[in-house]
């Protein structure tokens, strides 16, 4: 799949999360859309989490499970009344199982304009090494 410039954006609904584990707090939970790609050195994960401030974003790593949780505070003021409501706001949650080859101490996360960019560097040994064969 290649991205071409100038095409029309394909619309998508926000995906709600199926009840994997029940929440203690009421509210809707959404699964953010993600892009995951890999290079020789690292694995990068991009996630759309509009409305999440960096203080409200939690990234957890337990054994090999990477968890992303983003809380969204309702932006509406108390005395505002709805005129038209097309989307709901709520929590974002998604989990991924990482392979052992990720260097879990060097994970880097940047949240910018509602997009989270997680960089997961691979452990040195796993990086394929080119071995030059010398001729004697």
């Amino acid at each position, binding site marked *: 799949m290649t991205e071409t410039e100038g095409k*029309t954006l394909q619309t998508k609904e926000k995906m709600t999360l199926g009840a994997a584990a029940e929440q203690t707090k009421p509210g809707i939970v959404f699964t953010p859309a993600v*892009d995951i*790609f*890999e290079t020789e050195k690292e694995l990068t994960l991009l996630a759309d989490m509009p409305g999440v401030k960096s203080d409200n974003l939690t990234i957890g790593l337990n054994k090999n499970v990477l968890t992303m949780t983003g809380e969204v505070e309702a932006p*509406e003021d108390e005395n*505002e009344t709805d005129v038209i409501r097309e989307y709901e706001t709520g929590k974002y949650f998604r989990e991924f199982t990482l392979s052992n080859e990720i260097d879990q101490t060097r994970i880097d996360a940047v949240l910018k*304009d509602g*997009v989270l960019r997680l960089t997961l560097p691979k452990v040195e040994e796993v990086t394929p090494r080119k071995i030059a064969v010398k001729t004697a």
Partner: protein
Amino acid sequence: MIFRRVSNWPAFYWRTPFGDLERLKRQMDLINEGLLGGTLREPSAGVFPLMNVTEDKDNYYVRAELPGIKSEELDISVTGDTLSIAGERKISEEKGDVKYHRREREAGKFSRILNLPSQINTAKVDAKCADGLLSIVMPKAETAKQKQIVVKSS
């Protein structure tokens, strides 16, 4: 496909009944997508960006989720009682030799026109974009504001 809704259906004048219907429709769409893999999905359901409009005594507030879109890439204009938003979401191509495992985020152009229930003061519209959330504050025109009438007792 151009997702441009010139006039919003349902009209604004019937607030709650159609608002609930619209929400129900969205939920039905989600069920359809889950059961039939989205084959029954009408293209008309695809409007971007989705907007929430609220009001108080003096202003209308329009909010839309636009992750990864910078404010300078947005083209917002207002005339009388319509608001139009256009822009393009770009997802930059990663440099070098990359292998994609998942690609769920969408990129592309979008445009949308929204009809407001009443005239707005176009000179004082304020828009800001933070954390991927666009919020526009539009003061109602003086003529559109509700006037409280005091009943005098003689």
